[in-house]
């Protein structure tokens, strides 16, 4: 169920980021919100068995995994490889506002190309981390950086 919810969030975040890019800069609002919403959604998995957490973290990025593997291996069922890069660009739209900030680099392709591939496992990792027993927002809140007492 969480996988389907994550998929729903991702699909609408994709369209939102794209549409908001019509007003340059506003796509960052949706890109930040996307990470916040993912973290909140991952939080609903806190305390469940690790197998369920792992399957949610991996499965919701299933289309991304397929396109990434097609690109990396040249796997081409039904001509998927020919359009895999386009698919991956669309699929990673919610994080593209961050990827365009990557430096140019001197590899065969720009860094944002590798960033698109890395985004698929990293988004899974994001869910895994925020669904763990250690709650990053709570850790930050109680750290010396986030503590209200320290700020006072």
């Amino acid at each position: 169920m969480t996988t389907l919810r994550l998929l729903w969030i991702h699909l609408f975040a994709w369209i939102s980021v794209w549409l908001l890019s019509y007003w340059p800069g506003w796509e960052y609002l949706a890109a930040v919100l996307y990470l916040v919403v993912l973290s909140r959604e991952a939080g609903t998995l806190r305390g469940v068995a690790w197998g369920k957490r792992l399957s949610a973290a991996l499965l919701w990025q299933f289309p991304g995994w397929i396109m990434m593997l097609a690109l990396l291996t040249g796997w081409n069922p039904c001509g998927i490889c020919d359009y895999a890069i386009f698919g991956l660009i669309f699929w990673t739209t919610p994080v593209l506002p961050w990827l365009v900030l990557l430096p140019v680099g001197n590899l065969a392709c720009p860094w944002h190309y590798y960033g698109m591939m890395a985004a698929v496992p990293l988004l899974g990792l994001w869910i895994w981390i925020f669904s763990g027993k250690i709650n990053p927002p709570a850790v930050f809140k109680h750290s010396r950086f986030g503590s209200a007492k320290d700020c006072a």
Partner: protein
Amino acid sequence: MKQPFNLCIFPFLTLLAFMFILITNYAVVTSPQGAASIYLKSALSGNIGYGNPQKAHNSISFAGLEPGDIILGAYPDCAYGYYSHAALYIGAGEIIEGYADLGITVRSIEHFREYPKICLLRVEADQAVKLAAVDYARLQVNELFYPVAFKSGERAWNCSKIMWKAYQRQGLDFDNTRDLWVPPDVFYNSPHVTVIREWGQL
């Protein structure tokens, strides 16, 4: 239901943005000549991409091209118009173009020989304008390619938008339709260009 905010916020943002864009661009979005209508019609007939790639080995001559000239290539069944791809000639046999994996990139013009239909266009403008457009396009090399990048903004590009923007920054606007996107056909239909040479047919 757990966390309804999580499920509702992006559909809400999508609807809001869509409505604003639709209302402020109603005429062009609903126009039969608009990019959205053309793409929708193509998608309904089963064409969704840049067409069916072929290795046509066309024999067009690139002699006499000047920096700032435009090259258009067409594959059959392109979803967004007659021409599938566009590039800006920068001199010495090189072009600037947009690719999904390479972003905005500099390549040899020779790969345009694979198109079964190709057209070379000369921009009717001062040499200084054309060179400034080339310089602007060079500054965007390695930037992100996004197939449906809106005309606004300078963070994401496609093959046509980079050229349109490069000339628009110099005061020359190829797009007289005020559309949300710039398909390659915009250049062919513009009064600011003349055809240097064409080769092949679809």
